[in-house]
């Protein structure tokens, strides 16, 4: 049995009132390729950022090689041999690879030994099997190459512990296989690796031990010999105790209703160019009919955001067409789309959804500002009418507020979400596009929101429900489409639901 290389004891971290980590104990042994597995928001990155010195924990201790170590800044962690490759590229896009790697390294500051360093970098990249062009600006390189550069940067500064935060998000299969080979080389050369991911398949292929996290807590540490897909899926998506799980999930009554013959939404062969954070969309087609909730299941960063956004703002389409009630919306502005009876609740409710300083009333108006009902003589906003609509929203959606004048930022997350969804219901709705409407909400709020979605469905309208949480999708969707790497992997009817199968498909299995 190898010695504990990292031992994090009782680590807690809160951002404001949000608890990100709750008494975490985390152990990595020397020579491991240690998988840190969990859903989005499980706290994996936060834990690693604490280890790397970017965040300070509120509580807890870190032991390196058995010695208690205080890490105040990345400089401390680098000195202790910790290197980290972040989820979002931390390279300077305007610089070349050599320049990026030279940054921050030890040595004299008043000269640039580019030639000398270039040789050293080439040496290291050959040693570890990570080749890349060293003199091209980073902004012209692909995500896979950027990642290699980040790894070499960590090794260059003498890392003996390498943390890879979601290294595979933007890698194609061949690149992943290459990375896998490199990982083995690292271990041979005495580098320990922590590998953050939510893809079980990768963990199975790459790791020698796994820690599973869920909702800011460690579920379990699983040794290599105990690794099994089923076990990991269970640990990752469910509570350990199945009975608890059953009652912890929202309950919704989903009656059989007749589905209309004509599609409300037709998506025809659409493609969207990808970028750093998303693979884009690749030739996707599906129809949604009146009276159904159409779920889209995907792990974050697989094109699911594009699906939601391109319906509201079709100008982002690269090719293909979108039709609403048979009419193409290809050249429409968002307001044109809204006028066709579509509404939208975005993924990040605070950043993309609300006017922080505005009142509930003003927020209810947002997106409806050009509708005749709220506009007198094309110029004046009818605030009385808006107030009525806002009061309806407050009443219908149980928003906890004394009145509609309260500033939006004074509401809790759940109430904000209820108001945003309520806003979508203000005008007659044919299609609601909603993205992660329940993230971070308590179970009763989730149930309430689902009830509203189902009511909408029962009235003959449709819902495009993009969600990260598979359990929730299965509870409330009539059909589920699975998206992976910007491609549509399959569409399941309710009768075909199989959590294990869908979960596997979501993570590229």
């Amino acid at each position, binding site marked *: 049995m190898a010695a504990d290389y990292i031992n994090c004891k009782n680590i807690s971290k809160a951002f*404001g*009132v949000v608890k990100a980590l709750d008494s975490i104990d985390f152990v990595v042994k020397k020579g491991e390729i240690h998988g840190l597995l969990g859903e989005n928001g499980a706290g994996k990155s936060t834990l690693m950022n604490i280890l790397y010195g970017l965040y300070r924990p509120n509580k807890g201790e870190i032991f390196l090689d058995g010695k208690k170590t205080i890490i105040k800044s990345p400089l401390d962690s680098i000195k202790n041999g910790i290197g980290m490759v972040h989820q979002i590229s931390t390279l300077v896009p305007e610089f070349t690879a050599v320049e990026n790697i030279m940054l921050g390294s030890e040595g004299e500051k008043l000269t640039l030994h580019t030639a000398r360093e270039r040789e050293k970098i080439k040496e290291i990249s050959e040693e570890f099997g990570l080749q890349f062009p060293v003199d091209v600006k980073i902004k012209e390189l692909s995500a896979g190459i950027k990642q290699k550069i980040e790894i070499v940067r960590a090794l260059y500064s003498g890392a003996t512990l390498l943390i890879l935060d979601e290294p595979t998000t933007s890698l194609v299969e061949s690149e992943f296989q290459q990375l896998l080979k490199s990982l083995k080389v690292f271990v041979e050369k005495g580098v320990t690796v922590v590998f953050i991911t939510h893809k079980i398949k990768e963990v199975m292929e790459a790791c020698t031990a796994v820690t599973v996290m869920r909702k800011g807590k460690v579920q379990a540490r699983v040794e290599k010999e105990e690794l099994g897909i089923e076990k990991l899926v269970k640990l990752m998506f469910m509570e350990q105790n199945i009975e608890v799980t059953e009652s912890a999930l929202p309950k919704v009554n989903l009656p059989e209703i007749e589905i209309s013959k004509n599609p409300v939404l037709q998506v025809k062969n659409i493609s969207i160019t990808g970028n750093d954070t998303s693979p884009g969309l690749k030739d996707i087609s599906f129809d949604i009919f009146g009276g159904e909730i159409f779920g889209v299941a995907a792990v974050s960063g697989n094109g699911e955001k594009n699906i939601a956004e391109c319906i*509201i*703002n079709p100008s982002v389409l690269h090719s293909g067409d979108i039709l609403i009630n048979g009419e193409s919306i290809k050249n429409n*502005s*968002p*307001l044109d789309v*809204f006028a066709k009876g579509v509404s*939208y609740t*975005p993924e990040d409710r605070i*950043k*993309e*959804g*609300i*006017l*922080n*300083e*505005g009142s509930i009333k*003003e927020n209810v*108006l*947002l*997106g409806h*500002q*050009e509708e005749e009902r709220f*506009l007198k003589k*094309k*110029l*004046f*906003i009818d*605030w009385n009418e808006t107030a009525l609509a806002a009061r309806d929203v407050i009443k219908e959606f149980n928003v*906890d*507020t*004394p009145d509609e004048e*309260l*500033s939006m*930022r*004074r509401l809790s997350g759940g109430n904000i979400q209820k108001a945003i969804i309520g806003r979508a219901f203000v005008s007659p709705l044919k299609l609601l596009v909603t993205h992660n409407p329940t993230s971070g909400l308590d179970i009763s709020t989730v149930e309430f929101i689902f009830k509203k979605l189902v009511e909408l469905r029962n009235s003959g309208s449709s819902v495009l429900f993009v969600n990260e949480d598979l359990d929730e999708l299965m509870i409330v969707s009539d059909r589920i489409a699975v998206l992976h790497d910007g491609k549509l992997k399959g569409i399941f009817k309710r009768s075909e639901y199989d959590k294990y199968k869908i979960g596997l498909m979501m993570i590229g299995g």
Partner: protein
Amino acid sequence: MTQKNKAYSLILNNLIIYGIAIILALGVISIFVAILGYNVWDALRTLLTTSFKSSFGFSETIKKAIPLLFATYAFTIPFMIKFFNIGGWGQMLFGGTMTVVVGLTLGPLGLPAIIMIPLLLLVGIVSGGVFALVAGFLKAKYNINPIISTIMLNFIAYQFVNFIATSDAFKDPLEGHPITQKLSESSLMGFFGEIPASIIVAFIAIIFVYLVMKRTRLGFEITSVGQNLIASQTYGINFSKTIMVAFFIGGALAGIGGSLEVINIHGKLIEGFAKTSGAQFGIFGVLTSLVVAGNPLAVPFAAFFMSVLLVGADSLQRTMQVPVEVVFLSQAIIVMFVVIIREKYGKGNK
């Protein structure tokens, strides 16, 4: 229940911020006055009470408050979408200059006041607005920082005033300063006793700004973009259009301010107008607006308070020979303090 408490604490919060601001204001000025060796108590009393001791002091305060109000609006409206219009002064100059150009050109026609005055105000609105629109356009189309463009436009406007006031067509050849001929009687607004009639226009403008910002779709869009650009774009608000409109409205208000200075106070174009206590109204407008965090509804009150300080500062110079720079300097420090305090304590829980 808790929500109500929160709303109440918000009011308290603001009270504290402005309370601290005022105390700081007086404190900073006192320190400077004391360093310079003057009597602090006399200075403070002069500063705060000159406006209210005589009808003259009060009317002077109003005369300063009106252009200051417009200069403050000129900064405030674009600031609602987080852009800086430092060009209020230039827009005032340009609006006032165009007013004189049109007024002198149409003067011989002998149009009645009922036509002339609204027409001249309209000239101020349009020319001030268009002048500011240049900056809005440069931002929307070429991504040029409005701080730079509006300041450059200020200098251009300043030379333009000079050009008109010394041009053969308009100048008053006997003046020892660049000054144009007088506008005809029918182009001028009168006074209610000592109070300029432009106070009516100021009140209309206050109501106009209130209506536009609170009652119209335009105002809603400007407010929304300022609060959350991403959400606004997601929900169909056009950013380029909004920024240009905001700059136009700001400039138009500055333009009226310039027009009123010309047709109500001076009756002609004087090089160096739209200044007070040795500095441009534009700069005081920026400071005034920053004190109230660019809240358009608080602008009239802030402009009045600032005018009280300015009239007081003039009196301070006259009676105690305290340099006006002291007040000027203090205002910058005060705004800095207020902004820091607001940043630190004013946001509540984020």
